[in-house]
């Protein structure tokens, strides 16, 4: 009797455990089911086509929900979109959803190339009309929103990089305008520090706690000045050449040597930096177009600040200023409702909707037709970030995949070490070039990247691509 009881209990326990493990599969209401019949596209059989739209953007949540509701009530194709704003770990949630056939029909792109290679995204080429496609012609780039010539996503807003400076501190130091060259920047930082040090104000800062303390100023200044490519990758030569950052590294090092950098920059994070800037303790730093919102909501400030185009090496820019942008939404390769999903996507790219989005200060578009239609957003300091003929989207570099095979110190760490402690810059750059190009060769030879040299690339051709009439 006891034996029988034990057997029954064991089976029951196992059954409960297995049921618990598989309950996730039974509930597929969160996304499209791969095996669902696809004959109800566009709701022709009277039933609504339900689409799941996932995003990780929280800052524009209310605006977007309003627009999604408007789409649901106004579209004539019987399409119903449910928007889900994922909290943290968006990437992991997306991975799990795809691997368990619960992927959303339309989703915000997290990692473009990886997503396409994993087969998550459907090419948009056949879904787009020529007229619609033409609006994006100037902002399409390989490995950014295209792969092997096919378009998988389209750009939307971007991060525009600028020199952010405290006009009061500039005035105190007898400076009338933002620096236009690296020498002027070094000099301005020195003057501001001389005048402001007694009150704890310093000329320059960057968040050297992590690599972006270097990349924020360096990528912006180097792309504008030389236009060779991103992240140390020279697009023409198809190899890494960190000489592109020589002058920026030297200028930053000089400011450190002069004592013009804020004490503690070695471990300064971006938010503490912003907090100090908001208190009038920093003369200038380089960052992107999130700052107007930051100084309105996160660190409200009385400081009289403005954004200007970053300085170039010698005042004679030969390239275009990099804009961090390129992709926004993708349609799941697994959804049976591709056309319906594209109709929703088309709606989101409507001129009026996008212009309103920009005017309300949620983000600055990289789309020329939006920038032409939109009025200036009502956000203090935003005017300095609006697109100019300098700004452009660059083709992707193979830096991330190269670094997965890199042996030794990363470029950002090596160059930050030079900036903060000095040393032999020639040796540092030569060592980086050797190691990065060895790693690049390895990722090319096993097919991890298909990015090759493009001798015809000229950053000057990119200038004006984000504004109409250039």
């Amino acid at each position, binding site marked *: 009797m006891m*034996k029988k009881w034990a057997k029954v209990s064991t089976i029951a326990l196992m059954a409960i455990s297995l049921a618990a493990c598989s309950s996730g599969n039974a509930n597929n209401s969160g996304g499209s089911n791969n095996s669902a019949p696809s004959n109800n596209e566009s709701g022709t059989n009277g039933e609504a086509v339900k689409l799941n739209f996932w995003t990780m953007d929280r800052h524009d949540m209310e605006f977007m929900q309003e627009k999604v509701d408007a789409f649901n009530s106004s579209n004539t194709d019987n399409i119903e979109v449910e928007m889900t704003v994922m909290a943290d770990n968006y990437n992991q949630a997306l991975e799990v959803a795809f691997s368990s056939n619960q992927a959303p029909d339309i989703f915000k792109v997290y990692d473009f190339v990886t997503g396409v290679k994993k087969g998550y995204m459907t090419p948009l080429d056949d879904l787009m009309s020529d007229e619609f496609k033409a609006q994006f012609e100037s902002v399409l780039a390989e490995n950014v929103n295209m792969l092997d010539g096919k378009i998988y996503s389209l750009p939307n807003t971007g991060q525009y990089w600028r020199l952010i400076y405290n006009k009061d501190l500039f005035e105190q130091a007898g400076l009338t305008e933002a620096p236009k060259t690296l020498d002027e920047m070094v000099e301005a930082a020195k003057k501001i520090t001389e005048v402001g040090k007694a009150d704890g104000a310093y000329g320059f800062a960057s968040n*050297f706690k*992590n*690599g972006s303390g270097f990349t924020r100023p360096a990528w912006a200044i180097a792309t504008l000045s030389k236009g060779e490519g991103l*992240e140390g990758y020279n697009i023409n030569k198809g190899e890494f050449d960190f000489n592109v950052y020589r002058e920026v590294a030297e200028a930053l090092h000089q400011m450190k040597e002069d004592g013009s950098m804020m*004490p503690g920059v*070695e471990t300064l*994070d971006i938010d503490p930096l912003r907090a100090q800037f908001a208190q009038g303790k920093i003369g200038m730093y380089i960052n992107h177009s999130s700052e107007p919102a930051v100084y309105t909501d996160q660190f409200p400030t009385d400081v009289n600040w403005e954004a200007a185009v970053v300085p170039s090496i010698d005042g004679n820019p030969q390239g275009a200023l990099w804009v961090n942008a390129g992709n926004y939404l993708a349609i799941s390769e697994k959804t049976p409702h591709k056309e319906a999903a594209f109709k929703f996507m088309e709606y989101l790219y409507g001129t009026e909707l996008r212009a309103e989005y920009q005017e309300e200060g949620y983000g600055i578009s990289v789309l020329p037709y939006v920038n032409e239609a939109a009025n200036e957003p009502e956000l203090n300091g935003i005017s300095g970030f609006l697109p100019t003929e300098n700004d452009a989207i660059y083709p992707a570099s193979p830096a991330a995949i190269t*670094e*997965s095979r890199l042996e030794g110190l990363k470029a950002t760490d090596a160059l930050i070490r030079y900036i903060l402690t000095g040393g032999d810059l020639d040796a540092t750059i030569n060592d980086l070039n050797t190691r990065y190009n060895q790693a690049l060769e390895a990722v090319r030879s096993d097919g991890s990247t298909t990015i090759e040299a493009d001798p015809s690339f000229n950053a000057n051709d990119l200038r004006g691509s984000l504004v109409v009439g250039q």
Partner: protein
Amino acid sequence: MRKKIHAYIFTFPSIFLTLTLGVYPIFWALRYMFFDYQGFGEPRFIGLENFARVGRDTQFWQSVWNTFIYTGGKLILTLPMSLILAVILNRAIRGRQLLRSVYFLPTIFSASVMSIVFYIIFNSYNGVVNQFLIKMGFGSLDWLGAKYAMLTVILIAVWGAVGNYMLLFLAGLQNIPDDVYEAASLDGVNPAQRLWYITMPMLGPVMQMIIMLAITTSLKGYESIMVLTEGGPFGKTEVMFLYLYKLFFPLVSDSGSVQNIGYGSAVGFTSAVIVGVITLIYFKISKKLSNTY
């Protein structure tokens, strides 16, 4: 037989959970040791290349060295301090319960939250520590800069650990019978002799476990360093398991980095072996401590 079946039934849930959530993930990660795998596409078999790379990886070995400095510094300060505190608070002094709670308090705080607080306390431009030093006329220090960052993360780790080990020592001390001390006082033993000749030897087996716990915890520790310095400036406070963590989960601030699951698995295995070997060596050396009196 019936007893055995009962045992199986009652242990089944925990065995099941241990296997699925503990053992399976380890083997999941370890099988990629011999592959080149970034989290997408087909893993590519590369034999022992990941291990050859571990051997050549100066960054990794630097992080191992940093781990030894961090562990050594933390233990040298933490263990004597917590033992002394335990001995003092084991006596019938006024307010000892309150003091025990106060010293134990850091253990219950989240390491990440406290690290954010310490980041503010130690920052060089307006941190409390520097404000105090300036007021006292000493000038300011860049506590989290290249020169002092390791010292600072060690001090913060000591702050977080002392109370915990104090409690473990206290438990050990309370197991020492009072009559031993009474006999010693009849023989005219002074407090120092009492500590050295009675307390320490009788605490031996407990101490062996506490030190082992302290060694393994310190060798694996990285959370507070991740918040305080992210391993910087330029790798000065990069410890073994932070280096490993970044290979699997690139930090947000390190945008653009890709996962490195294959190489990460090899680094993980090597790190586990290092911790294992050190623990074994310690057990060998400390055998004498486990003698019970």
